[in-house]
């Protein structure tokens, strides 16, 4: 039993809903009790969909459990097929139905429905949403293609040349409730189009069962979101010999590597720049002098595996940040995230407990947090700027404007999204400096939540009070004590690094055996930690 106050991922059947709702002509009969229909609002409210998810819930009640629930399931299946006329039917169960073991998938298969039935077994008590989405996509693709004759496993990367056509690829993995999938797909289509590569099928987003049947005529699979598509991609490779890309094109360097990988796999030689103009503004913006202050910014990264790893690379290679924490809530992605963290000299945080993540943020004292919407809230409480890089999705992550993460434009979006909160971080510092000036209007809105300066002052006073309290505590414990002059110096340090400086100075004072911390100790510590 696991105490959970909030969870990054829903249950696996919500993952299945993401696949069903992303597609056309697919319907999902979900054996589930009343109440599980809440999941519809994820699509209709958060993603603002103007369509109900194509899901029929059996909504059984306690009184049904005494009777024939199997008949109830069959009734719902029959009605759903008649009413919605899907071309493929997914059948599965939620956590409660799993316990009563009606086996709705087998029931459906015994009903002579004349459409392909994909039976889903998604263990609700051990797996989560992303796994459920990946498994559903895999079962669906496998179920629809199973009768198709297998291609020659020997893969010929240049067959498109022999056939006198442009190479064509599948884009696999984009779904509803994914992070900016809607716009990533457009950006990648644009990118590949500029390199003379056609799109064969995009799936699951907006794909129909007929599209799934056409998957095998592609020369290459582009695995856009490994969390969702990797199992399908490797199955297609094993059974049809179609290779797939391993690079996720988020960031300028990753996009370049992505193109290089595609060129190699398709036998296209070396990618050449299409124009003399730099395709993304990120490299120049990052190099321009205004960005000098970004150097060595401490950044804490947490999210799904794909976006967290991509963020770590962009942060270090493209923006010159220092990554001080890296983690994911996705156990399936723990291995690559651990490897990435190791490269950065860190130990990865693999956790589904947001309080643990918040504690790790506090501990590493970053100047910027790149996380999920939950880390945005944690960072707000800690007074640290934050940008959101990953699901779980929130209404703010479905912006009206075009806002991809992938490709050249994605890099531009990322530059703006990550750097603006930081600029504001400096602005906060200026506000702190000037707030005692009489021209300053009380109630000036800060971007960090809707705190007024009055509250900022209050929390500042509180932290100053805490500092005093700490000093008293310290003297009782024979710990170094801040002198009033030391405290005054500490107060001059920007709020977002003050905690770190305080800890470092105290640590230094202990090591050096100082009883009192004055401004000199503070500067001694500063020099010590620079050295």
């Amino acid at each position, binding site marked *: 039993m696991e105490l959970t106050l909030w969870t990054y991922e829903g249950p696996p059947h919500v993952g299945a809903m993401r696949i069903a709702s992303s597609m056309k002509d697919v319907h999902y009969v979900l054996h589930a009790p009343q*109440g599980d229909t809440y*999941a519809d609002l994820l699509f209709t409210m958060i993603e603002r969909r103007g369509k109900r998810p194509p899901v029929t819930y059996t909504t059984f009640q306690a009184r049904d459990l005494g009777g024939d629930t199997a008949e109830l399931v069959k009734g719902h299946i029959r009605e759903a097929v008649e009413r919605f006329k899907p071309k493929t039917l997914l059948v599965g169960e939620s956590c*409660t139905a799993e316990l009563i073991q009606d086996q709705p998938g087998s029931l459906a298969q015994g009903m002579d429905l004349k459409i392909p039935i994909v039976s889903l077994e998604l263990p609700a008590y051990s797996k989560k949403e992303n796994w459920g989405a990946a498994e559903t996509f895999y079962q669906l693709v496998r179920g629809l293609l199973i009768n198709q004759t297998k291609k020659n496993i020997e893969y010929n990367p240049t067959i498109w040349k022999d056939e006198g056509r442009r190479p064509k690829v599948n884009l696999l993995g984009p779904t509803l409730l994914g992070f900016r999938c809607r716009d990533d797909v457009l950006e990648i289509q644009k990118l590949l189009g500029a390199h003379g590569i056609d799109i064969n099928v995009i799936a699951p987003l907006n794909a129909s069962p007929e599209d799934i049947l056409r998957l095998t005529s592609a020369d290459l699979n582009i695995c856009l979101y490994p969390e969702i598509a990797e199992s399908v991609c490797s199955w297609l490779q094993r059974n049809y010999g179609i290779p797939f890309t391993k690079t996720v094109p988020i960031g300028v360097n990753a996009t370049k590597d992505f193109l290089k990988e595609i060129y190699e796999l398709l036998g296209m030689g070396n990618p050449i720049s299409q124009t003399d103009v730099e395709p993304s503004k990120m490299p120049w913006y990052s190099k321009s002098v205004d960005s000098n202050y970004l150097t060595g910014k401490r950044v804490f990264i947490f999210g799904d595996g794909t976006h967290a790893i991509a963020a770590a690379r962009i942060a270090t290679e493209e923006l010159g940040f220092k990554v001080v924490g890296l983690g994911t809530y996705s156990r399936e992605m723990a291995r690559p995230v651990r490897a990435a963290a190791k490269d950065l000299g860190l130990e990865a945080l693999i956790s589904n407990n947001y309080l643990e993540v918040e504690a790790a943020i506090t501990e590493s004292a970053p100047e910027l947090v790149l996380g999920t919407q939950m880390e945005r*809230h944690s960072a707000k409480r800690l007074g640290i700027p934050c940008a959101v890089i990953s699901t779980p999705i929130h209404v703010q992550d479905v912006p009206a404007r075009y806002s991809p993460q992938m490709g050249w434009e994605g890099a531009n979006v990322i530059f703006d999204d990550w750097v603006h909160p930081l600029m504001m971080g400096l602005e906060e510092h200026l506000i702190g400096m000037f707030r005692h000036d009489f021209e300053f209007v009380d109630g000036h809105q800060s971007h960090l939540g809707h705190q007024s300066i009055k509250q900022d002052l209050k929390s500042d006073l509180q932290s100053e009070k805490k500092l005093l309290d700490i000093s008293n505590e310290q003297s009782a414990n024979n710990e170094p004590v801040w002198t009033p002059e030391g405290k005054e110096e500490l107060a001059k340090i920007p709020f977002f690094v003050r905690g770190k400086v305080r800890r470092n100075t105290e640590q230094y004072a202990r090591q050096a055996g100082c009883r009192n911390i004055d401004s000199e100790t503070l500067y001694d510590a500063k020099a010590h930690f620079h050295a």
Partner: protein
Amino acid sequence: MSGANLLKESGPREVFCGLTSIVWLHRRMPDAFFLVVGSRTCAHLIQSAAGVMIFAEPRFGTAILEEKDLAGLADAHEELDRVVKDLLARRPEIRTLFLVGSCPSEVIKLDLGRVAERLNEALIGQVRVLNYSGSGIETTFTQGEDGALKALVPLMPKSDDQQLLIVGTLANSVEDRFISIFKRLGIKQISSLPPRQSTDLPSIGSGTKVLLAQPYLTETAKALKHLGAEILSAPFPLGVEGSILWMKEATKSFGINDSLVNSTLEPLKLRAIKALQPYKEKLSGKKLFLLPESQLELPLARFLHRECGMELIEVGTPYLNREMMKMELELLPEGTRVMEGQHVDKQLDRVREYKPDLVVCGMGLANPLEAEGISTKWSIELVFSPIHGIDQAADLAELFARPLHRNELLNQKVLTTA
């Protein structure tokens, strides 16, 4: 009973389960914690409905059952003890812990009553542990509150003193307002269930007269009646008329003279009707379709028809307790279609057929209907907003007028040069 046309339907339902009521119950009693014993689905449901992220740490959570808990119930009991111990160590300010049953805990027959009993002994003097079920197989949305309040009833101290007991969660401001009006009317002892502190329970006994503020408290009412209380039968305090009839039921049973009642309530009534007027103009003659969800549908339909002039196409309700809704049904116009239960697809077919001006529905259905050009009002807002009472009648009407008003704003042309 009047001629409301009582119909029944069954099929796929689109309603919340009783766990959802934790969302307002935990705010009402800040010293209580609601621990759902369930699955990741339960945790995901509550966080999706409640906007949990704004809390540093919410006062509700889920003990998520894992495969090993399903394998042996003995272990599940031990595990739950451990989770509760950890939780209370983390939140020492908690005085009442509700163990809330869910669909999976009911299906595996995890006896939360026994767990509560055992934990009560272990935690005596520190925390009281109660249990109820919010499972979707047994409860719908607001029924969860019925379960929670019923669990509190046995702990209420016994007293046969004369008192008025208001039962059902109200917004604090609304509750204060009712209390001050009742005091003006000469009722001296007034208390509420649930109280604002879980440990501050009102007394119960033969002198207690109960006014139900919410229409979904069947089991709680039964339990209170069993302890000697008199349950007053009135329409629910939504709108001017409902609120006045509700308050008058109390004054009648306390033997308060009519002239005091009328002289106190008449000015309030006139003022409220005046405030209601602009919304009445907007809503009058408009067609209304209510889908089942909160159990407030009947009182709302009565208010929107009788005081705002709306035409009722269909009034859905998740379940119909005829005894509890007797007065409400009597006030509905002849032949009103009251649909108990749901077949959501068929119901949506009827929505499309009758083309109402406004549909009251859950969040899963609102945007899809809007996309079809049908204005909606989501029902969950009604359980979060202060809508009860005479002074709130205009606010309540405004909630329904707003979507219509918004449509007008978005369809108007103001700048002549454009």
